[in-house]
């Protein structure tokens, strides 16, 4: 669902075009070329042709996601990174790792509350 192309998707986007070919949908050839470049750049190898085909489909979805991020976050640059062959779920599970604090920690009454520091002058 995250990848449904909204009406806005049609807009041209100069930045992402450096990464992804023109037009809204990714041509098969386009995705293959970008994926091959990604494999070389990050030294990726996959178990077999099936795994590679799956990873390329994830990669293509992430290119569309990068384009969406670029639109939502225009003051940054978004595109292909070393995580571009991972689903958002795999990325979260493997490369983050912040545990949710217990409710008490969130609610406040924190025993380690920092004193207010002067910020003028």
């Amino acid at each position: 669902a995250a990848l449904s192309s909204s009406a806005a998707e049609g807009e041209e986007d100069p930045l992402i075009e450096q990464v992804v070919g023109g037009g809204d949908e990714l041509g098969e050839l386009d995705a293959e070329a970008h994926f091959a470049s990604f494999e070389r750049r990050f030294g990726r190898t996959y178990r077999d042709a099936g795994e590679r085909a799956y990873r390329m489909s994830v990669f293509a979805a992430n290119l569309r996601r990068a384009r969406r991020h670029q639109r939502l976050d225009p003051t940054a640059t978004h595109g292909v990174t070393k995580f571009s062959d991972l689903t958002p779920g795999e990325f979260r599970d493997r490369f983050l790792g912040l545990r949710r604090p217990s409710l008490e920690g969130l609610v406040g009454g924190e025993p380690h509350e920092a004193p207010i520091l002067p910020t003028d002058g």
Partner: protein
Amino acid sequence: LPDDFDWRERGAVGPVKDQGSCGSCWSFSTSGALEGAHFLATGKLEVLSEQQMVDCDHECDASESRACDSGCNGGLMTTAFSYLMKSGGLQSEKDYPYAGRENTCKFDKSKIVAQVKNFSVISVNEDQIAANLVKHGPLAIAINAAYMQTYIGGVSCPFICGRHLDHGVLLVGYGSAGYAPIRFKEKPYWIIKNSWGENWGEKGYYKICRGPHDKNKCGVDSMVSSVTAIHTSKK
């Protein structure tokens, strides 16, 4: 408060590291804050061990005995500071190198390099965060990493970004204005050290906007803690 501030220019920030495929971001955020605090206490920058926390820190929240630090399955910086206060301190990276997976604890008390004197949780106020950064050194912070998987550079300032926190990183400085490559919009920003290696982001760093129009973007102001260190003479 200075308009711009960057602890990297003052020698308080160690090299960018890579947590690998392991949910140990919390230990990198914790070690980075203690490296800075140790530098302020001793004038020496020691590269400290995350693996000791991944293997040995199973500290639980004071109020919830099931919410505990657990290696590659996640942890919390404030709980890690509590563990370090109880364990006596943290060994160096050299003595306890990073493995990227949880192993049995091999903590050696005689090799402690840095000790936590105390830690504090800072309110969700950008001036207070900046003041604590300048006073206590790099701060352990949490953030929502939704835009970081595709981030290449520039100042991130998404129109829409959730504030539920899922990643622990290190706040090392702030800038008064940065340029986006295409749109030349000036945005004041936080400078954040990540733990995904130098071949991610801006040589391992991430910039996210701050300031009156962009408060708490992606939850970046919501969970900020500082740590102070004691000078430990090496035995």
